[in-house]
């Protein structure tokens, strides 16, 4: 932040590995037959646990969280559950319906933040803008588009620059994938730097309990690639002075009526 002396320090209350595997870490491990899991190749999306952790650490109640490629709306649903305002954007009509349904369900379950799902970024002709966004949180996978990986990442991250307020964060959840000689997250960090973001830290979000077999009975196939049980996380900062801005009213304190419906709408883009 310009004009302020930043003294960065490390704090043990937060760690670079997120305990976001969907089973309790302390739960006893079973050693039954291995279940057939779905291919992790398609896991470009962020899980609810990972989204909830990112929102809890990199925003505060009342902040605005935006997922500019919101997919099924997981980030949006978790944000309103955590008393943040949420904005999802997707240009895919089917995904828009899914994301809106997720938001509606979250509100029906008593989520106290407000949210909306847009079908495009607001333009000069839109009736409203996004307002200040405190946290841009999204997931990027290996099959999002064709072309050189670094080029398409630059294009996406450059577009996100318009969203975040000065002093805000961009947190990108990257699927574990090796392409073009390095892993996707390393491409992301470099592409972010190329487009004016400041990569601050790299973290790891566990997506499964990393079960460890006893070495005495371990019979690995030395040529097999590792099976992903995590997603990489790149935390970016935004350079520039912290802006003064108007923000939406904070969500009401608990308890909230469970009959509240989604405030999502579909403005003209």
């Amino acid at each position, binding site marked *: *932040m310009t004009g302020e002396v*930043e003294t*960065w*320090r*490390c704090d043990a*209350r*937060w*760690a*670079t*590995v*997120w*305990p*976001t*595997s*969907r*089973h*309790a870490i302390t739960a006893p491990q079973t050693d039954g037959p*291995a*279940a057939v*899991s*779905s291919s*992790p*190749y398609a896991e470009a999306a962020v899980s*609810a*646990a990972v*989204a*909830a*952790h990112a929102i*809890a*650490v990199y*925003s505060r109640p009342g902040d605005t969280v935006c997922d500019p490629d919101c997919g099924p709306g*997981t980030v949006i649903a978790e944000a309103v559950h*955590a008393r943040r305002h949420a904005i999802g954007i997707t240009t895919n009509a089917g995904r828009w319906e899914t994301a809106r349904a997720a938001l509606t369900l*979250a509100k029906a379950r008593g989520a106290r933040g407000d949210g909306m799902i847009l079908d495009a970024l607001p333009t000069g002709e839109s009736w409203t803008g996004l307002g200040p966004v405190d946290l841009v949180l999204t997931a990027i996978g290996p099959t999002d588009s064709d072309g050189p990986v670094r080029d398409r990442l630059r294009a996406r991250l450059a577009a996100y620059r318009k969203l975040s307020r000065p002093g805000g964060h961009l947190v990108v959840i990257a699927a*574990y994938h*090796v392409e073009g*000689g*390095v*892993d996707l997250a390393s491409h992301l960090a470099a592409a972010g730097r190329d487009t004016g973001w400041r*990569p601050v*830290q790299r*973290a*790891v979000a566990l997506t*499964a*309990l*990393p*079960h*460890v077999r006893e*070495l005495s009975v*371990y*019979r*690995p196939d*030395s*040529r*097999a*690639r590792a*099976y992903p*049980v*995590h997603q990489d996380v790149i935390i970016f*900062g935004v350079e520039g002075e912290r802006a003064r801005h108007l923000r939406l009213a904070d969500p009401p304190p608990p308890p909230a009526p469970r009959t509240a419906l989604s405030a999502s709408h579909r403005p003209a883009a």
Partner: protein
Amino acid sequence: MPTPSESDRNTLPVVPAGRPATVWPCPPATPDRTSAGWLPSAVERLVVTVSRPDDPVLLLTEPPLSQPTRPAEPGDDELGEGLVACAGTVARLGRRVQVRTAPGDASPRWTGSACGPDLVPGRGPDPDCFLLVVTVVEPTRIGWFTRIDWGALLAVGGTLAVVSRCESFGGWLIDPTVELALAADRSGLALLDRIVLLEVPLSQLDMPATPIPAGVVAQRVHSDLLLFTAVHAPMPPAWGAA
């Protein structure tokens, strides 16, 4: 930790048999046994995963600083010393292990011949090539790594394993991955996998998540294990069955 919504009750993915996971936990201490530590545990798992008994294994430590910019402090070269201490573990697993120190001023590109004492002698002839080479690289000191012809050190089908880490200095991420991958690429090696090495037991991570203050970064509790193999070697599919 925050409680995610009820919509996330999916089944837990299970690592298929025969494939390592991308996260290698640090074994916790038990009442009757202290933890061996994350680096020895990782090296042991690595050796079992990518090599077989009697394979030649090289543990290569960083060269000493020729002109230290500051007096040596406790903890300097801790990783290098830890790697040397792993030699006994590797030997116990039946591999022919050698421990060497990389030269700091190798020119032209160093290929490993006549490069320091074998600290675990008596295991047969000194091989020119290794099925596994393990080294540690500090993220701010990778110059020596770029001057080594890693491809010449590896036997056919061999693996280069690099233990490194990302750091945050002054609010900027220092990630050596791209530089390391480029250097390996010049030696004809390609990144096969990037493994997360947990430096603390999983149970220590189970803390409530709260907003992080401005100007604060999270404590680093993991290192990275980059696995490189020869480009001409058959590469397994990224997500295919083992």
